[in-house]
């Protein structure tokens, strides 16, 4: 009888890890945990030094996690560490508005009571999520985290892949996965072209403290200049994603905090009482960026590296985690069948699974944004009636809720809360 450990040692001698993940944001660590739980070895290459990312102060950045994403985090063992810091989203109210005029008479309400899965999603600050990932990565066997390292070169051959780091270190594996965002160096080095366009809009992101409780309700105000999302955080605090034309956003970002709040008040309204800044002010230019291919032999792209979307409705991270769940399932299953996990026919299963869904969602959010970022009275009347109609039809509304909660479509097992 062979000693199974001998094979493990031989394999580790041939490759530093089975999989090289470039990018240590959120998708990279999530993928690393899912793969390591499935018995594969992973190296995560993170450009940022670990300690600065794990600092505890709130910087105002937060995520809206869909139910399916929460299930994935639960299986990965991350959710129990962050649950206490999360705010359930119990209702989403979408309405059409003009600054200073309040919401139009028709508005759309999505209520968690309409679907059996419970809250529609959870708000969670970036700092808690990232530090929970960091803790999980350091305690999970099979994961090597290289912080403060950047990739300068990558190479794929018929039987393996390797990256050269800025420090001169070289790492090898069976495949490279790019989780390095919409400016993905992994995709660029592989010669994968991108299609995309800007919206001429920039998202202003910060956290707002308010006098009155939000009752777990998220608001989306569709303004002619761009949407304003108000998303509940624990306590009397909400995260805002405030989209404006690029030039106006630049002017607003240059304002003092008092002037910034004065510009926000007519859009935000007074339904939560007096408002104050409760975090740093960030800006993100809005653009859509789709990679021409999600996979090549021994290479795969995940999250924004594959499809950078408009951050409306907080779907960027949720889409990324869907990629993570699908790719992890494809790779772990292939590995258990004895297949070569870097082979193109294996990786194409991931591309086929994810490409349709992510392209539809990216284009869908683009359409929603273009339709609503408009002051044409006919369009405005049309969308008011449209919102009213959707609101009047429970089955259609439940469809939207399930889509937003990440419960629609052919779900990978991790998103259904099951281990691979």
């Amino acid at each position, binding site marked *: 009888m062979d*000693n*199974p450990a001998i*094979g*493990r040692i031989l394999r580790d001698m041939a490759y530093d890890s089975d999989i090289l993940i470039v990018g240590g944001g959120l998708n990279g660590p999530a993928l690393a945990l899912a793969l390591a739980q499935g*018995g594969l070895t992973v190296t995560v290459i993170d450009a940022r030094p670990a300690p600065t990312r794990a600092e505890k102060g709130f910087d105002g950045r937060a995520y809206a996690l869909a139910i399916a994403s929460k299930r994935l985090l639960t299986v990965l063992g991350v959710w129990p560490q962050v649950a206490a810091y999360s705010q359930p989203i119990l209702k989403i109210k979408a309405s059409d508005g003009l600054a200073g005029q309040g919401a139009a008479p028709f508005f759309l309400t999505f209520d968690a009571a309409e679907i059996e899965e419970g809250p529609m999603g959870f708000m969670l600050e970036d700092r808690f999520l990232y530090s929970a990932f960091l803790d999980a990565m350091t305690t999970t066997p099979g994961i090597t985290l290289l912080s403060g390292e950047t990739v300068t070169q990558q190479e794929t051959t018929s039987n393996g892949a390797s990256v050269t780091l800025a420090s001169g270190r070289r790492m090898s594996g069976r495949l490279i996965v790019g989780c390095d965002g919409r400016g993905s160096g992994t995709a660029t080095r592989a010669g994968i072209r991108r299609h995309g366009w800007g919206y001429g809009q920039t998202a202003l992101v910060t956290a707002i403290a308010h006098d009155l409780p939000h009752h777990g309700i998220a608001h989306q105000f569709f303004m002619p200049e761009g949407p304003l999302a108000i998303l509940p955080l624990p306590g009397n605090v909400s995260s805002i994603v405030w989209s404006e034309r690029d030039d106006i956003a630049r002017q607003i970002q240059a304002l003092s905090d008092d002037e910034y709040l004065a510009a926000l008040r007519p859009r935000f309204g007074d339904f939560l009482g007096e408002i104050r800044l409760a975090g740093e002010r960030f800006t993100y230019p809005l653009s859509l960026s789709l990679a021409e291919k999600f996979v090549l032999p021994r290479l795969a792209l995940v999250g924004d590296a594959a499809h950078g979307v408009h951050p409306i409705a907080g779907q960027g991270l949720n889409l990324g985690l869907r990629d993570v769940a699908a790719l992890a399932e494809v790779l772990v299953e292939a590995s258990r069948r004895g*297949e*070569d996990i870097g*082979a*193109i026919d294996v990786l194409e299963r991931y591309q086929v699974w994810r490409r349709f869904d992510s392209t539809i969602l990216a284009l869908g959010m683009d359409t929603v944004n273009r339709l609503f970022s408009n002051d044409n009275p006919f369009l405005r009347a049309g969308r008011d009636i449209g919102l009213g109609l959707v609101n009047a039809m429970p089955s259609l509304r439940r469809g939207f809720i399930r889509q937003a909660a990440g419960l629609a479509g052919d779900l990978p097992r991790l998103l259904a809360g099951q281990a691979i």
Partner: protein
Amino acid sequence: MSVSSIDPGEVAKFEAMAADWWDPTGKFKPLHMLNPCRLDYITTQIAAEFDRDLTAPRPFAGLRLLDIGCGGGLLSEPMARLGADVVGADAAARNIPVAELHAKQSGLSIDYRHTTAEDLAEAGERFDVVLNMEVIEHVADPLAYLTACQTLLKPGGLMICSTLNRNPKSYLMAIIGAEQVMRWLPKGTHDWSKFITPDELYDLIRKAGLDPVDRKGMVFSPLGWSWHLSARDLSVNYVTASIKR
């Protein structure tokens, strides 16, 4: 060399294709597409028979496995990766260097041989597992061939055998569909009259001295453009598991 059960005309056809084995979009695309489904069945059956945990690294360590009609090694390589001690046998000489070259590139150690099941049996080689996949429809004497497979197994050993059913639907799918319309397979790859029904195969397996224990259909779904196992639909491709008691 003993009298081979391999039909000489069949060997020549496969020799012509050998170099294309490892191109997933090439001539063997249908086999590459079928492979995950075949591997799901094979790995599950081996794990069940030999009490192995598929979530552990190298679960098949210590098992001696023969892949008959190994071709370019599409099944031999996954089995070696899972830890099995693999002998790949093919009656077409040209497949052997192709398979050896690819195994070396993949960093795998596999014993590829230009030989037949009958010769290996006569030489006294014995295995825990015999893979007999998409071969029997190409042999001249199926019973003699299965008897050689039985001889090759150690007591308690497992044979996995897949082939094509013989009925109007399989003629439509495998001959008209796969060879003539889709051009997935070169014309003349299969001779429909050599296809075997699941009941005929069970009879042959029993006559050869093995105990058939399971059979499943392998069904192509055009919607997902992939293959899956089916407990009910054995109408075209199917796979069986048999034990040597």
